């Protein structure tokens, strides 16, 4: 990291701490959820004292939305402050869509990503709705166009060979599912013997990976957490990126934009709500 960058990093950290301290002082929130540096490790932490904020860390990209969901469930009526980047905010929006969290109980401390951070994640919107720390670099396009185009150029048989080879590396550690804040179902289909055989690696093609791909098709916001969590280097984010492009082409839908927008897989053909009447027997 160059000197200028580390200076910038410190300034952003200071801004986050300031805003967090303000929120805690105002009594508006019961605590601040952020990452904390303990020696050389970074863990999610609920800050409730202003003095503790010194150990707050923003250098690591870890999706805390899943932790927020559990915290909010335990906290009763308390409101919660969350340090969130662009992707963190979109996670929260998607969780609110699923009614997993109540977004009105959340106060976001917006953290804008630097250009190098955004480039690493192949991000296209590296800033949250409200920016408290850092400077938003605006809409960018760091998507890995080369890799995506090479995938799209393949014909079906080449593509199948490509993906089977890659999926055969899978050791079924469930890292992709566990790291994903949007994979928050209580009962996971990937663990049910009915759908995916238990205790067998590599998992069968196409069930395991495509079940996850289908489930996330209308939720994935492209944070690339799953890819970073994968110990076998499976380029999951490329698959999800392509699916997201197609969701946009097919249904004109993009995940993570607003809480009121409904997933096209939960509406009828006229984008109206699904009827739940059972009809007359």
């Amino acid at each position, binding site marked *: 990291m160059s000197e200028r960058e580390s200076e910038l990093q410190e300034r952003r950290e200071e801004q986050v701490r300031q805003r967090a301290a303000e929120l805690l002082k105002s009594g508006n929130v019961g605590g601040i959820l952020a990452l904390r540096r303990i020696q050389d490790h970074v863990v999610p932490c609920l800050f409730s004292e202003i003095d503790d904020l010194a150990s707050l860390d923003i250098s690591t990209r870890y999706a805390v939305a899943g932790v927020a969901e559990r915290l909010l469930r335990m906290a009763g009526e308390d409101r919660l402050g969350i340090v969130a980047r662009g992707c963190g905010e979109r996670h929260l929006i998607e969780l609110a869509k699923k009614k997993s969290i109540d977004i009105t109980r959340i106060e976001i401390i917006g953290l804008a990503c630097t250009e190098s951070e955004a480039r690493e994640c192949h991000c296209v919107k590296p800033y949250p709705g409200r920016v408290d720390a850092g400077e938003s670099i605006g809409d960018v396009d760091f998507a890995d166009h080369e890799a995506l185009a090479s995938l799209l150029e393949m014909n079906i048989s080449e593509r199948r060979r490509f993906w089977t080879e890659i999926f055969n590396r899978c050791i079924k550690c469930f890292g992709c599912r566990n790291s994903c804040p949007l994979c928050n179902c209580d009962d996971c289909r990937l663990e049910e013997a009915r759908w995916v055989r238990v205790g067998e690696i590599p*998992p069968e093609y196409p069930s395991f990976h495509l079940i996850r791909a289908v489930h996330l098709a209308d939720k994935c916001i492209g944070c690339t957490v799953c890819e970073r969590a994968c110990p076998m280097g499976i380029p999951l984010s490329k698959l999800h990126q392509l699916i997201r492009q197609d969701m946009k082409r097919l249904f004109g839908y993009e995940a993570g934009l607003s809480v009121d927008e409904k997933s096209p897989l939960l509406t009828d053909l006229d984008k109206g709500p699904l009827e739940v009447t059972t009809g007359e027997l």
Partner: protein
Amino acid sequence: MATDSISPKKKENLLQEPTIELAVFHCRWCLPDSARVRALLPDQAKKSALVARINCSARMESELVLKALGEGYDGVLIIGCEIGECHYRTGNHLALKRFVLLQDIFTLAGIYPERLGALWLSPFDPEGIRKSIDLFYRNLCDIGPFKYTMEMRK
């Protein structure tokens, strides 16, 4: 590897003379009788096909399609009511969207989208149904079986 899921006997058959096996899921409100659906299938597929009645085409979850392919079926056909005729009003809207999405993901993952078919039909036209199924089956025969397949070989 995943191919072990097929029984040795079936594997032998597959290697000698690839047969195309269908999994058919049909809505109970337009075609209540599985035996009648089986009778509509092409002769070569009649015996080996899996014909299952589901309550609505929307009950056809993506997991079922993927599992059917993983279990050795070469094509999956969903039969539902015409759009607008659903017993549950909008069940087949959901199924149609899911079908489009699945075909799309198939293409991205390297599975021929033709392996998944959907018919939205009126129950009063058995000849039409037979023709559509025939067409779907012939397309499948051109593609070949799923497990030891041209998707891999070519």
